[in-house]
């Protein structure tokens, strides 16, 4: 299932770094944060598997917009973050 633009999503508050070697493309400062899907960018092989030369499933990649004040210190009004996040890291909020 592909998430539609405008869908409110929460980034999983998950920390694979604490469980052993990994390659994670979801920045720490977005984990557990809620944002809005801007668009589906396409489907791409999972870098978490490619990084270990494992067979990699194609996963949907999204542009997700986050209001900056919730995430970054010293924000300016209207600041936001636009990040690329793979589907398995997102749950509907």
């Amino acid at each position, binding site marked *: 299932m592909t998430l539609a633009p405008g869908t409110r999503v929460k980034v999983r508050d998950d920390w694979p770094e604490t469980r052993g070697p990994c390659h*994670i493309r979801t*920045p*720490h400062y977005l984990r557990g944060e809620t944002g809005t899907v801007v668009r589906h960018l396409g489907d791409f092989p999972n870098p978490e598997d490619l990084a270990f030369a494992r067979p990699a499933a194609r996963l949907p990649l999204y542009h997700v917009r986050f209001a900056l004040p919730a995430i970054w210190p010293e924000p300016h009004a209207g600041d936001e973050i636009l990040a690329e996040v793979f589907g398995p890291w997102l749950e509907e909020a």
Partner: protein
Amino acid sequence: MEHDLPPEDRPHAMHDIGGVSRFMCEPVDPSPHTLTAFDREVDAIRQILGMKQVMSVDELRRGIEALPEADYHRLSYYQRWMLSITGTLVAKGVFTEAELAAALRDA
């Protein structure tokens, strides 16, 4: 949960430094960097390894992220690449540590 912790205290990887105040307080040099012959050679080697499907850019990144933290901050951008490439190729059995050491000695 971890996301309620200040950025410094989250169990983030060393390269995942967005919002970590230790780095926000350091000046950033935005001037263009001149590529050295070493930089160009390392970049070319990585491209050939990718084209020949020996090693992907994702493996390169993982290798960089696995460097000892002191080395990561001390080394140049392409020095990190070189250590990731040699470490990955040794781990994949493309050549051995001994062969690498011998090649460096003869270089």
